[in-house]
């Protein structure tokens, strides 16, 4: 029983002690991870709870159909809702064909050269540009240079550029998921490239493309900063009737009410948020449903 022997074969006590500490730190870490994950969920719960308790009772037909007003009791969302609708419609009309077109080009046509890589790099970086910078672009390009003024169309074009990268990325993924055997089958029957794309690739990718587009448009509904920057108004007491009318949108109206000091307006803001969230929830459910249908069809 020399000192050497004890060192070579550690006593079981030593093992047990470190084992306990290892297990203990493992559990601690696990606990931290669980709590962290919970925090995100709890925060979401708190946010929704806070907003719905403040805002749900605001929402009624009167609230949806009245113009904004200096008197909180009379104020409503009418012009903001209509503005959001107009803005959204033109954003979709502009962004959808451009985004899908770009995605088709990159997946089915583009040669592997520096220009293609440059386009891809551009798209990746545009996705990370802060939305307010798009606002400055819209202000400089559409409002002032094209002299459109602070109208729906200027807002839609700005928004379209903002969501274009999202649509392109989602559409590319959907197109890439179409198996090559379908492309070959189509070519082997004498289809030209465009016939192949139109009749084989696009129908198969349609679900994914639509899902991505809806999610991108949902983003456009919620964006505030770029529209404020191009100068969309905060107080509009008439219906916008076309692409060249001055307008406001839901989130701007909400922002306007939040910024007022009176408590009544804060409740209006909460009511506006409830409406906004319901719209977004609908859009998202639609996207999820489309994705589900698409998955079923592929099986």
């Amino acid at each position, binding site marked *: 029983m020399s000192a050497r022997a004890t060192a070579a074969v550690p006593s079981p006590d030593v093992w047990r002690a470190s084992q306990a500490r290892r297990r203990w730190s493992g559990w601690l870490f696990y606990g931290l991870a669980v709590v962290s994950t919970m925090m995100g*969920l709890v925060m*979401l719960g708190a*946010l929704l709870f806070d*907003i719905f308790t403040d805002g749900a009772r605001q929402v009624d037909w009167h609230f949806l159909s009245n113009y904004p007003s200096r008197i909180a009791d009379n104020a409503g969302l009418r012009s903001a809702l209509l503005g959001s609708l107009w803005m959204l419609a033109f954003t979709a009309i502009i962004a959808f064909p451009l985004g899908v077109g770009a995605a088709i080009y990159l997946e089915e*046509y583009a040669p592997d050269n520096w220009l293609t890589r440059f386009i891809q790099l551009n798209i990746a970086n545009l996705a990370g540009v802060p939305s307010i910078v798009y606002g*400055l672009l819209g202000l400089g390009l559409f409002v002032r240079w094209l002299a459109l003024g602070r109208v729906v169309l200027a807002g839609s074009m700005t928004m379209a550029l903002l969501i274009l990268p999202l649509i392109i990325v989602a559409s590319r993924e959907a197109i890439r998921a179409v198996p090559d055997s379908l492309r070959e089958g189509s070519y082997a029957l004498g289809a030209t490239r*465009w016939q192949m794309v139109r009749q084989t690739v696009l129908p198969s990718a349609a679900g994914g493309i639509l899902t991505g587009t809806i999610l991108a448009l949902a983003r456009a509904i919620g964006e505030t900063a770029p529209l404020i*920057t*191009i100068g969309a108004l905060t107080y509009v007491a008439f219906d916008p009737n076309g692409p060249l009318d001055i307008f406001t949108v839901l989130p701007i109206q909400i*922002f306007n009410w939040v910024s007022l000091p009176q408590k009544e307006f804060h409740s209006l803001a909460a009511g506006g948020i409830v409406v906004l969230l319901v719209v977004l929830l609908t859009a998202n459910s639609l996207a999820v449903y489309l994705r589900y249908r698409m998955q079923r069809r592929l099986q």
Partner: protein
Amino acid sequence: MNNWRSAPRAQPTADAAAHQPDGFELASSRRDSLRRKLVERSVHVVLFLCAVISILTTTGIVITLLGETIQFFGEVPIVDFLTGTRWTPLFASKSFGVLPLVNGTIVVALVAIVVAVPIGLLTAIFLSEFAPARLRSVVKPILEVLAGIPTVVYGYFALQFVTPILRGIFPQTQIFNVASAGIVMGFMILPMMASISEDALRAVPRDLREGAFALGATRFEVVSRVVVPGALSGILAAVILSISRAIGETMIVAIAAGLQPQMGFDLLRSMETMTAYIVQVSLGDTPQGGIEFRTIFAVGTLLFVMTLVMNLLSDLLVRRYREAYE
């Protein structure tokens, strides 16, 4: 020249007739073929133009920002802009030192990062290393909802919910303060931080993990000594991207952090960020074309450059970890 295409049909011999026993005929004249080629060319060109829009957008951003910014620097020396500590372009005695705005931006972003990075990383670890697939498939989409909520809603939440709580704890807290905006912004960024980190963690090959388990490591040891170090460049990319998002975020700070350009680090006070300043000017009646108006483009340029550098950096890091494991 075209004998090959038309021969079998141009001379319907008995043979050729036997070739088409069913008697239906495909229209495939030379004119059709020409038209088809024309369609193909035009489609190709149109699709190419769609893709080129992205280059035009970037060019548009750069030209719009630089055009006004260069004019701005014609009137205000660039050094004064970048080093001055007083920002009062909307007052009678004008000062164009952008540092207070940069200070506000960085402080808010720091608060957001302090919230988002640890919580996001731990969430990512929980989802990729601990959670059973079923739980993960429930938790992930719920967290994604956080990312889909419009920022104006977060602004409301910061001002109406978080600020009153903070004021309950620290009575000296101002109505508009950096802490509340930063905390809420942290939760807004959290899903992105978590999802990019999770991708990075998942990219660490399974045999590396198994190797560590086989040596008798506990799960915590595997995660902390093998998985997280292996995913480090991806996690770093997530952090940088989160900072970039925080710097560019607008509505939360415009609503909850206030509009007072300040130097310093007092989280309970009001500060103005670069983005909030742009909103402030856009809402006001600043005449277009004046020096005050140009300030937003100068500030916007600075913002664009800062986020661009960070996005490129994070891109580089992501590519590094992809290379490492593929």
